């Protein structure tokens, strides 16, 4: 957060996330997907563009387990990964 004596400068305004907060995954239901994603990141030198499939799968896992609100994947920025699959989620 901004420190003291910043009277003239603009201070950082944190914004709430667009879709709210992720419920905590207490039971570790999507842990395997997370591990896959992390491994992919490590292998690809932390380039996000190469691991988008894994992140999509993680979010799908969350949506299935009710740890995340159901959203069409296009709205999450995965429109290019869906391709021919018809995702009738909503």
């Amino acid at each position: 957060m901004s420190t003291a004596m910043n009277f003239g400068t603009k201070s950082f305004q944190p914004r709430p996330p667009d879709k709210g907060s992720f419920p905590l995954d207490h039971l570790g239901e999507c842990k395997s997907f997370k591990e896959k994603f992390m491994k992919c990141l490590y292998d690809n030198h932390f380039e996000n563009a190469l691991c988008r499939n894994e992140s999509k799968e993680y979010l799908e896992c969350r949506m299935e387990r009710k740890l995340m609100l159901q959203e069409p994947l296009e709205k999450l920025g995965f429109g290019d990964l869906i391709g021919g699959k018809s995702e009738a989620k909503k």
Partner: protein
Amino acid sequence: MGGLWHPGWRRVTFCGWRWIHPGSPARAAERVEPFLRPEWSGTGVAEKGLRWLGTWKHCSLPARHPALQPPRRPKSSDPFTRAHVEEWRQRNKTTLTYVAAVAVAMLGASYAAVPLYRLYCQTTGLGGSAVAGHASDQIENMVPVKDRIIKISFNADVHASLQWNFRPQQTEIYVVPGETALAFYRAKNPTDKPVIGISTYNVVPFEAGQYFNKIQCFCFEEQRLNPQEEVDMPVFFYIDPEFAEDPRMINVDLITLSYTFFEAKEGHTLPVPGYN
């Protein structure tokens, strides 16, 4: 005493007052008085006397019979000056009125500025927090800017009174604007009691923070960790594609996202926006 304003002395008093400016007319008249008694011989001596006082300047003393002199007026003795003074007074009053009106208008404007500014922010989208309706349609339609790679580094902090182990699971990630990305933090509660924490975040550099959009994360809501529990906390975010078009962001290649966890106590609220 005959008074200072005896007709015979009137002119001299007036002149004396003009020269000996800091002094009072009374004292000037007293000093001048001996030289101007009618017994004194001639105006020449009077003038000499006044010269002796060292104060004779341009004052002219036409020899006038006292009875013919006009009734006295205190400060000015001719209509011109009085009209001038009146006009100045009038002008001063008008100016004062205008100045007071401007001051009151400024005060009113400063009060009106708050809602007006909020309105302005909502329409133009500046200022970040007052933007209405920008989220999911934009994500759907945004195109990644593939030639601008940004490194996002992650930082995790914990308030001193919170005993969690909180750390990011990756030190950095490379994204491009317009591409959604996922990152993980991990938190462990090593104590034997359930602890509730609440977090907030910060983005450095400050100007890049307005382009950093979180779709979903774990901040601003109370998160409860049971004893000895360890959880993964994801952050799903993207950098606004307009980042690539902002000239101030040309040299920005590193954005640091920093989360800080605090302990949530009863009745203690974080001074940050929640959404509930």
